[in-house]
């Protein structure tokens, strides 16, 4: 009796999950296949309703999860191969429920915003279909209960990202950026797939529940790679999977695609390239936390890579002049923070920052989009200034986003980022000693580039041309409403989530902790209020103020100063402008080395060595035959050729029968 009851409750939960995941897919399919018949308005209605309902349902799901409900169920068997069953199935627990609600909420806001932003674009219907499809793929990724489905979602979001970066495909820069994003992500996938292969070999399954149960057995097991190379299995798996995460979550040196992805429409930058898809790598590592805590070598690597990304990508934000690029570099830097938290085995802090970042970064991008709309698609901050007078709602919401980003006490980003930095400071994972100062230094950098942007755009003299200035006005409500929607959690999410997420009450053991590592221990007893008060005694607070102060000095008080500093820095400034030369290196590999190799193998290998030398004799005979046949073309080649071949076959069989007949 009771079994029936629980199973029917599980069925209802499965139906709920399926509805959340499949509604956006249905909307994407409908508008993608029949969008032109539906028209603009119905397309908006269909996609927004679907995602909106998904969001509301996700809140029910979170409530159920808070009451202790869990789901781990297979929908169907994708394949059975090599003695292993590869299912499609769903896992609902505190982590996936949180991700679902964040994804659907941001997606919902972006859907509404896009009505205003994509108005008058001939590809509008296609756009809505794509973002609904993206929402589906992202939900598939976060709800998976196994690695195969995670990978399907992983590549699905990659595909839609490719399509949307290249949305304005007639622009050569857009289609180039799309190709670049896909290829760099494929480098990551190469490692990811190998990680999956090793995982399967070592544990015999790709189901999370089985993996986690078997992870302790792998401790101490070595993988023989040949050439005398023997590595711990857990670390190797962890590193290979993280290579995939490095591409998706844009960690050095696989970060190069993300700044270029700004070629896509701005709502996409908010949804895909800030709030959701790029955090997939962070999510994946956290999802696997019971596994990663046993792989300390991999954690150290993640920690260092994350900290380097946080600082060095932040520095690039200081010299960028395109408003979207500044925010993109800031995203890179914040992703570095999240990765560092994961590496410090403070998974909860990483996910906490992922959530708050999703809100305030989506807000910043959408607000930047509002600015770009007002500026008639001008993105260069050097041609902006003084916008606060013309766009008050955009101004206020942008300020809220900026304060959250620089971790101003009280704003959501403060709770997650300062907790994260402190956790890294307390971590005993090797490398934490190096990562900690990098992260602290980045606080200054973050404040500097954020408020440099803020002052350049909204304060100071109005540097746009007269025509643009005349038409400057606040964006329509479909644009500003999502800004307000997102501003609320950008401020408040920290207060609400701090204690449940970092106190550990919410997770219920879903996120593991490395043995002997107490990175999150200081937060057990803290409340949001006590943590807020502690801000003013912390050095990061004064570093942040210093960053804002420097920005104010250079971009409000002494506008000539930044150029003078840039001059003084000389080559260091040029290195930053060139993004440390990563792009050039990839470009050289992709457009010089690879084609050179291809031509070498083709002309010298295929044509000269194989066709020219090896097939030479045959080729000559062939030529003679060919010219002989060409003379027959005056007659009916068709019949001659048929006779010829038929005769050959008959001859062969005749010979065959003769030789065997004698036996």
């Amino acid at each position, binding site marked *: 009796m009771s079994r029936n009851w629980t199973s029917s409750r599980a069925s209802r939960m499965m139906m709920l999950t399926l509805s959340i995941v499949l509604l956006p897919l249905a909307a994407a399919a409908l508008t993608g296949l029949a969008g032109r018949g539906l028209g603009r308005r119905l397309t908006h209605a269909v996609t927004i309703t679907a995602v909106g309902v998904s969001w509301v349902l996700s809140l029910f799901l979170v409530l159920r999860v808070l009451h202790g409900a869990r789901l781990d169920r297979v929908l*169907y068997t*994708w*394949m*059975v*191969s*090599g*003695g292993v069953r590869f299912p499609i199935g769903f896992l609902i627990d505190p982590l996936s429920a949180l991700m679902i609600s964040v994804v659907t909420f941001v997606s919902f806001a972006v859907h509404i915003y896009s009505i205003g932003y994509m108005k008058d674009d001939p590809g509008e219907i296609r756009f809505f279909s794509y973002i609904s499809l993206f929402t589906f793929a992202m939900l598939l990724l976060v709800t998976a209960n196994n690695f195969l489905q995670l*990978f*399907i979602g*992983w*590549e699905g979001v990659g*595909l839609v990202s490719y*399509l949307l970066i290249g949305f304005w*495909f*007639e*622009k*050569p820069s857009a289609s180039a950026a*799309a*190709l670049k994003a*896909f*290829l760099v992500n*494929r*480098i990551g*996938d*190469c490692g990811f*797939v*190998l990680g999956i*292969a*090793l995982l399967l*070999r070592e544990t*015999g399954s790709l189901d999370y529940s089985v993996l986690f149960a078997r992870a302790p057995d792998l401790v101490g097991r070595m*993988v023989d*790679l*040949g050439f005398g190379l023997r590595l711990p299995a857990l670390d190797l798996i962890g590193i290979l999977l993280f290579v995939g995460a490095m591409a998706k979550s844009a960690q050095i040196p696989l970060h190069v695609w993300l700044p270029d992805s700004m070629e896509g429409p701005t709502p996409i930058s908010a949804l895909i390239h800030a709030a959701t898809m790029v955090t997939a790598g962070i999510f994946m590592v956290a999802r696997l936390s019971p596994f990663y805590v046993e792989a300390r070598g991999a954690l150290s690597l993640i920690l260092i890579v994350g900290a380097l990304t946080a600082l060095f990508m932040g520095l690039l934000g200081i010299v960028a002049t395109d408003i979207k690029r500044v925010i993109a570099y800031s995203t890179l830097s914040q992703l570095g923070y999240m990765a560092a938290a994961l590496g410090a085995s403070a998974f909860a802090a990483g996910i906490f920052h992922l959530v708050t970042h999703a809100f305030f970064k989506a807000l910043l991008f959408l607000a930047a989009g509002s600015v770009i709309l007002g500026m008639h698609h001008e993105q260069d901050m050097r041609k902006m200034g003084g916008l606060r007078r013309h766009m008050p709602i955009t101004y206020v919401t942008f300020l809220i986003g900026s304060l959250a980003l620089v971790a101003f006490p009280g704003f959501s980003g403060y709770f997650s980022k300062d907790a994260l930095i402190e956790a890294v400071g307390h971590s005993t994972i090797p490398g934490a000693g190096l990562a900690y100062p990098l992260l602290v230094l980045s606080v200054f950098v973050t404040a500097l580039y954020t408020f440099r942007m803020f002052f350049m755009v909204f304060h100071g003299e109005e540097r746009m041309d007269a025509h643009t200035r005349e038409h400057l006005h606040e964006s329509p409500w479909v644009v500003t409403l999502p800004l307000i929607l997102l501003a609320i959690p950008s401020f408040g999410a920290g207060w609400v989530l701090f204690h449940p997420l970092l106190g550990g009450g919410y997770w219920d053991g879903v996120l593991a902790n490395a043995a002997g590592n107490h990175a999150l221990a200081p937060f057990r007893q803290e409340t949001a209020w006590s943590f807020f008060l502690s801000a003013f005694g912390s050095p990061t607070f004064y570093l942040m103020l210093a960053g804002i102060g420097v920005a104010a000095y250079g971009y409000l008080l002494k506008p000539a100063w930044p150029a003078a500093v840039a001059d003084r820095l000389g080559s260091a400034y040029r290195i930053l402008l060139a993004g440390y030369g990563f792009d050039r290196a990839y470009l050289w590999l*992709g457009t010089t080395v*690879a*084609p050179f190799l*291809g031509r070498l*193998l*083709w002309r010298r*290998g*295929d044509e000269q060595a*194989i066709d020219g030398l090896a*097939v030479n004799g*045959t080729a000559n005979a*062939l030529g003679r*035959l*060919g010219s002989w046949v060409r003379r027959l*073309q005056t007659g009916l080649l*068709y019949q001659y*050729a*048929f006779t010829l071949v038929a005769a*050959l*076959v008959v001859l*062969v*069989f005749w010979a*065959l*029968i003769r030789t*065997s*007949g004698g036996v």
Partner: protein
Amino acid sequence: MVHGPWLSLLIWLPILGGVCLLLPGWRSAIFRRTFALAISLVALALSLWVWFHFQDGTSAMQFVERVPWIPLLHANYHLGVDGISLPFLVLTTFSTVLVILAGWRIIDYRQAGYFAAFLIMEGFMNGVFSALDGLLFYFFWEAMLIPMFLIIGIWGGPRRIYASFKFFLYTFLGSVLLLVALIYLGQRVGSYDLLAFQRAPLGLGVQIWIFIAFLVAFAVKVPMWPVHTWLPDAHVEAPTGGSVILAAIMLKMGAYGFLRLSLPIAPDASRYFAGLMVALSLIAILYIGFVALVQTDMKKLIAYSSIVHMGFVTLGFFAMYFMIGALTTESARMGVQGGVFQMISHGLVSAALFLSVGVLYDRLHSREIGTYGGVARSMPVFGALFVFFAMANVGLPGTSGFVGEFQVILSTWQASPWWSLGAALNLILGAGFTLWLMKRVVFGPVRSEAVARLPALDWRERLVLFSLALPVLVFGLWPAPILNVMRASVAHLVRQALTSKIG
């Protein structure tokens, strides 16, 4: 078990239909092509009938027919299918329908002959996949070359004579040794029964010679590096339909030969040469990947891409000999399944890509990448489909192209992590050459006035491309049905391939 001449019908009905088409006395072209389409549809229905009456879970041959053929030689007219050959029968009949639809208006020169050639070829190809007698197999194997030779030679491009003879001689010379080996086996076993060949004990020395003879024939067909150079020429000169059948079905013959003949008949020699086979497979994947990158002719690019994908197939087959440890048998099965699935998926995807190129070629009469650019502007539906098939070619999860590659990469790790890495590098290279093609053809600024005025897909083209997109998507989301059909036969094959015949 179902009895009845179903396989014979699948072979001879299209051949008979093709011959009828060549007879004089047809009132008009429309009758002829309707007749051709009807025959191909009946064959498709027949093959589906066979599919649905096939019993999973056994490796035994089904739908067996056996009557004496050349009593003097103990050669029988012996047909049957198992889980490995069955999918290829359906793939053959399906592709033929599409080719006939695709040639409906495009072929204006000797259209009846064109359709007849495809129908006759369909019959012969079905024969290859269902023959269980060595001589019968060889008969179909050679016979199918004739229609293809004519298709390239008559309906091909400007250098068609050169290409058709290169194709014919390459593959014909390759298969002469096949015949010698089959005759030797026939003499030794006392019949030409392929299943008896598989059971016959053979010493390593003999196996090695037999394997080499088979290898020459099959490697040319696959094609494996370095005997692949006929393929780009053949594809470039062949009409669209010819390319479709060449890529979808004919390239599978070589790999099928490895499964039906090389591995079970000469397992010890297969183990002996496995290192060579793996090396050639990895060369195909990596070397050809780079060559594909620099092609300027769309058809050549897709032809080279086919060679890369067939490299996965042979890698999946032969890596099993290097697997060690407890999971060897299971991993070996996964590798072979992956290879077979890759063959099926490549059949669908490469057919779709060649048809897509055909769509463009029919409009602007150029296969040069440089002619195009911004096609998605004037042909949005076509652009979406072309990109979809490109993604399948890249092995995106959710399309059929992912499954086989995934299985091969997963299973190969059991043999060597480095080979897995080599295969996985195709994730990057394959995406490189395929999506760079998309960037230059489908995306980008509209190249010319002609491209801007490209007419949209007509309903027939849509029908053809959508009916390929459907299975590519369905089998990507749910590959289980195909894998279930082949499971028992693959398990049987792996057992044969890993069991020594010496002594």
